[in-house]
């Protein structure tokens, strides 16, 4: 099928501000939007810049705004976002500085990630038998949803609170905090909750649900944020 990709372009070595360019390509309906972008890059305009790696929705490199919604280009099929002869608009994700075309500066995003202590803290001696710590299947299931995060930034850069204020830690960092707060092996929930109770922490969330809709891993992001808020309100992790 024939589709037109309308892509927001910005070359820092040439342009003062971004502009739109359109490219018409021939693709299969079941091709990924990433395939269509590669078709542009490889056969029409090699200057188009984007990040991508695994091409099947696991590495989290190619988050972008496709027809106004945050998606992974490699997990979105052309037929689901365009009809024959139609147009697909592609822009960089919002709220992070654009470096070139579809590539944004991810550093502010990862700085928020690092701020919530995204690692297991357990200062008890290791089991004397040299084996694993025990965790019941139910305790393991408690935080399963938030272990799926691939740090693609689809959620954080779909959030109006984050657009309004980049200092807000954002949904992805809260998801990471949730993954450890609810892990029965972890002992640093208190410290993480203190970080998240600060003005740019979890209370900036206005429960808009954009993050949940945007998550390519199907994580119930808003629910996870709500659970963290609930712990802050009640002081009880359950």
């Amino acid at each position: 099928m024939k589709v037109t990709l309308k892509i927001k372009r910005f070359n820092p070595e040439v342009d003062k501000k971004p502009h739109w360019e359109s490219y018409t390509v021939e693709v299969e309906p079941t091709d990924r939007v990433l395939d269509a972008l590669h078709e542009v890059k490889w056969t029409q305009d090699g200057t188009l810049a984007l990040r991508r790696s695994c091409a099947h929705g696991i590495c989290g490199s190619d988050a972008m705004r496709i027809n106004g919604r945050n998606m992974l280009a490699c997990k979105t099929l052309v037929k689901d976002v365009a009809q024959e002869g139609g147009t697909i608009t592609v822009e960089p994700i919002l709220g992070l500085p654009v470096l070139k075309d579809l590539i944004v500066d991810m550093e502010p995003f990862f700085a928020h990630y690092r701020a919530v202590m995204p690692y297991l803290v357990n200062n008890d001696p290791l089991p004397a038998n040299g084996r694993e710590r025990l965790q019941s299947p139910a305790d393991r299931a408690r935080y399963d949803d938030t272990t799926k995060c691939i740090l693609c930034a689809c959620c954080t850069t779909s959030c109006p609170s984050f657009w309004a204020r980049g200092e807000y830690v954002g949904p992805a960092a809260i998801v990471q905090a949730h993954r450890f707060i609810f892990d029965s092996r972890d002992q640093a929930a208190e410290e993480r909750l203190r970080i998240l109770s600060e003005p740019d922490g979890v209370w900036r969330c206005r429960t808009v649900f954009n993050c949940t809709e945007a998550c390519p891993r199907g994580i119930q992001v808003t629910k996870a944020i709500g659970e963290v808020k609930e712990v802050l309100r009640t002081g009880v992790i359950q």
Partner: protein
Amino acid sequence: MPQYHQFDALVVGAGGAGLMAALHASQRVKTAVISKLYPTRSHTGTAQGGISAALGNLEEDHWEWHAYDTIKGGDFLCDQDAVEIMCREAIDAVIELEHMGLPFDRTPDGRISQRRFGGHTNNITKKPVMRACHAADRTGHMILQTLYQQCIKQNVTFFDEFQVIDLLVDDGKCNGVVAVQLATGEVHVFHSKATLIATGGFGKMWKVTSNAHSLTGDLPAAVLRRGLPLEDMEFFQFHPTGVYKLGILLSEAARGEGAVFINGKGERFMARYMPTLKDLAPRDICSRYIYKEIREGRGVDGKDYVYLDFRPEVINRYFEEDGNPKRIDAHYLETRLPDIIEFARVYQGIDPITQPVPIQPTAHYAMGGIPTNNDTEVLADETGRVVEGLYAAGEVACVSVHGANRLGTNSLVDLVVFGKRGGIRMAEYAKQASFRPINKDAAAAQASAQLERIRNSNGNERPHAIRKEMQEVMDEHVGVYRTGAGLEEALDKIHELQERYKHIRIDDKGYKWNTDLMEAWELGNLLDLAEVTAYSALWRCESRGGHFREDYPNRDDVNFLKHSMVWKNGKLEIKSKPVRITRYQPEERKY
């Protein structure tokens, strides 16, 4: 003027092996990690089914059984002392990952859950054994995340999105690397005492592959350019269950949970070929029989694919036929295999719970690579002489623990065990070594010249066209079935493409985020590795593991129970070295 950095230890690549090395090296010496991707984008994250270790959490198991299975799976080309190290240390490595916080699935009593995987057996009954420790079908994702989390905790230094262009090797010693910062195009010289290469595979030389776009073999190609050899390059694994046409991997865990191969006549054909392990035979064997079925007209609808069937009623029917009392349902599969079920739904529009899934073998894993000894030190030749200060671990390395065919889950075992060994070893070396002098301007100029030649090249060849032709010829002649004539044709074609590559033209002449330039440069690396792969495959006139020659269909232990080592100094040169055998004598491989 290039930017200049100095570290005791440098790790290139931030997947499982690189991060594991970085964690252990940074506890001992000043360490930095350089990666062309953000670390969490690394391909370790796509590993699905599990990481094997003889924990024996669900049934009797021993690391010696794991070692035997690995050696037999590798068609007796593995270096057996290395395999023994890997399988013995796998147990502590998996426990260490759990202690770091890895969210393994659990048994009812809270221990790490384990499942069956291809080629992993109880050595007495010969039946499949539950050895693969798993976290749903996203075990690699959990390993990558957990290791990166620990690196954050330890405040490891990262240079993210830096492409390493050259290795500084002088007088048989490695003194660091030269890299380009993708965001700026600036050249950075990294001066080190010890450098570890952990950049993963290079499957992008094939068209149908499970590999990421970034897996272009940049460092193995740099090793070749520096006059050092690569080992066993003819051995590349074709995983039997790739999504038809796309190559996206559908984990062997599906078969571990009971899925079966079905041909166009509705037959479970693996039971015919491998009566004991059936669908859980090792990957090289399954891939060969899938193509045999297709060639003999038993593909689905006469086409070039078969089904992977994991509908619950089908799994249960074969459980019953096999005398296995286990029964499963849709909910069980959705919990154990959520990602691959989603892949089929998203990319094929097929629901595996109600429909069988079209699959074909997909280029998956490099058994060969940069030769190392058991301490991850890179080897300069077939005698075991090491390149001082240079190390390699994980898929990019050839220890060799996988021999001619890797067993499922052993990639993850390899990268945690040898990543850790490498990190410790390089740090110990760096502690007692001093910085050797380098000429940083000359080093930077030499690396820049590689890029400037492409940036300024004004030919009329498009990199994409060359890449496509390379991938097509590799799929056709350097795949599951090979012949001498086909390999010679492939080699001729690659030489033609290398010649045309000298006359390429790119569109982007800039410096900031010039992905056009980087892709073109990566293509040059792939072409060099494709050439070496076809050349090594032509040399090996036998069939062993993942390398099957139709003109030499049998294994030939008299002439080829040895590793290949290939150099490219002007022209290609091949030598060999013996396989190290400890306690497992080569035998016919039956399952």
